């Protein structure tokens, strides 16, 4: 009896020792990343939060203002105009991008010719292009001095639209971002479609379903988690819009102001005006807003999505 007990205690404590060892080893694998995470994500965010609570004036030096910078931001029409722009942009861009990428993915899932495989690769290719170069290439195409717009529209006796002008820059940017990202989203959706169990199609065919019904009833519902993922990526990307408008500022002189998007405004405040406190406040507010938006969205869609569950 006692030996049994002693044995079982010994076994349990050796088990516990093994567990502690395993726990330490587990942390060992995670630790290098955790250090980078603390140093390059947590520390800058906390530091930005700290800086954002101060204001620096030419006269009077730095003083603690608590949420003064945030109150200023949310009454600052330059900042609010930028926020309004990225919101409008997201509302148009995201459905457009999802429709294009889903449509192409569905077509490529159906058509399996060599040409379709080639098209799939080429449509994905813009993803490999830096946003700077993508914006520049389209900027050239839009440009009156080098672009083919006047030439192409001239064939039909029309004047080419100036997508760099103040009125149309919204669509100019819309086109660039769609071109850049639709292929990547298409590949994600295409792979999700390819992962669908083919016996489902067989069963549906036996039940007399046509291609359209299979698409609406089987394919689209089954790739819903991938659609949610894409929506999240697109939302995070659009709210922090920076590269494309920053690059097109020069080619589209006068159409894009230095405070066109919240991120550009933060950049301008920090680097052109050396107003680090206010720049930090805008960065932090932007990060927080994106985080809350996306988190809420994930929470609402969590039953269908797989990312947070």
């Amino acid at each position, binding site marked *: 009896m006692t030996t049994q007990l002693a044995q079982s205690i010994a076994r349990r404590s050796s088990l516990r020792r093994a567990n502690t060892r395993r726990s330490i080893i587990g942390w060992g694998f995670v630790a290098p*990343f955790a250090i980078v995470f603390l140093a390059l994500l947590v520390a800058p965010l906390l530091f930005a939060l700290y800086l954002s609570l101060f204001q620096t004036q030419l006269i009077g030096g730095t003083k603690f203002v608590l949420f003064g910078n945030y109150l200023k931001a949310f009454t600052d029409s330059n900042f609010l105009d930028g926020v309004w722009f990225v919101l409008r942009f997201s509302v148009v861009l995201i459905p457009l991008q999802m429709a294009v990428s889903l449509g192409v993915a569905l077509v490529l899932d159906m058509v399996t010719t060599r040409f379709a495989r080639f098209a799939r690769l080429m449509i994905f290719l813009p993803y*490999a292009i830096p946003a700077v170069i993508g914006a520049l290439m389209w900027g050239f195409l839009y440009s009156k*001095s080098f672009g083919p717009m006047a030439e192409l529209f001239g064939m039909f006796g029309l004047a080419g639209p100036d997508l760099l002008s103040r009125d149309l820059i919204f669509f100019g940017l819309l086109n660039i971002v769609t071109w850049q990202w639709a292929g990547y989203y298409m590949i994600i959706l295409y792979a999700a479609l390819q992962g669908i169990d083919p016996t489902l199609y067989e069963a549906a065919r036996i039940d007399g379903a046509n291609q359209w019904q299979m698409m609406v009833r089987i394919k689209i519902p089954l790739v819903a988690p991938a659609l949610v993922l894409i929506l999240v990526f697109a939302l995070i990307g659009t709210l922090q819009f920076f590269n494309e408008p920053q690059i097109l500022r020069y080619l589209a002189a006068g159409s894009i102001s230095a405070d066109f998007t919240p991120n550009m405004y933060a950049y301008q405040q920090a680097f052109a005006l050396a107003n680090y406190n206010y720049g930090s406040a805008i960065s932090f507010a932007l990060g927080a807003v994106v985080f809350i938006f996306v988190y809420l969205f994930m929470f609402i869609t969590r039953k269908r999505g797989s990312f947070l569950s």
Partner: protein
Amino acid sequence: MTAPALRTPRRSRLKPRYILLQILLGFLLVYFLIPFWWIIVNGSKDAAGLFGGGSALWFADTINYVSNLGELFTYQDGIYVRWLANSAMYAIVGGLGATVLAVAAGYGFAKYKFAGRRLSFAILLGSVMVPTTALVIPTFILFSQFGLTNTIWAVILPTLLNPFGVYLMHVYARDAVPDELLDAGRVDGAGELRIFFQVAIPMLRPAIVTVLLLSVVSSWNNYFLPLAMLSDNRLYPVTVGIGQWQGLASANNSGGASLWSIIILGSLVSVIPLVIAFLGLQRYWQGGLTIGSLK
């Protein structure tokens, strides 16, 4: 005998639709490739060809690739070559580092139970939703405290942070590496590190290639971070360098004319490495990109 007879009319009914779909794909292809075509054609032109009023979508009378390349590689003492080398260095060092960290952490999260695992994983998932550019200005200010701005580390260190890569590795390791196999290794007396290197790593290879490729691409394509961090143009990656040339050329209409042909060819040259990498490695990333989207 009846089955094929039934199938034939259906197939012939489907075929025309597929032809229409393929024509549609053809139009899409033109749209997605037209910027590449423009840049290939116009990279061959000199200033006269660019501004001379010829077709923007076709070659000029003279093909100037060679002389334009010569100008591109010698302009400002050949700084473009330096930018390319910088881009490659930032992308490879940062991308490799990010991948190593992500593989270890993803495997640790997936295969070990340790105190604080659930909480730290939840924080990791939350951090995927923090926009990276929101970190640029705070990181710049933090780095300036340590004199790290305007050094290569200012670009490389932030690149190491790739929470999404950790998430991808975690999902992949959880599903692709069976616990039984790891336990079998332990029973045979292999250490945890040896199990990681000899059992887990080979099974994780597709995910490793994907995370590596995604990190290298995002680092190569990065613009905001190096733009904010670097003031010495000899440290620029090619994205920031071309952006700067473009600003110069736009601001300066008269002297800019010859600069434009360098910028256009420079853009073309800078995308070639990544296009080759993607086309060459498609076997690997096509499977890997789905990791996050499938359960």
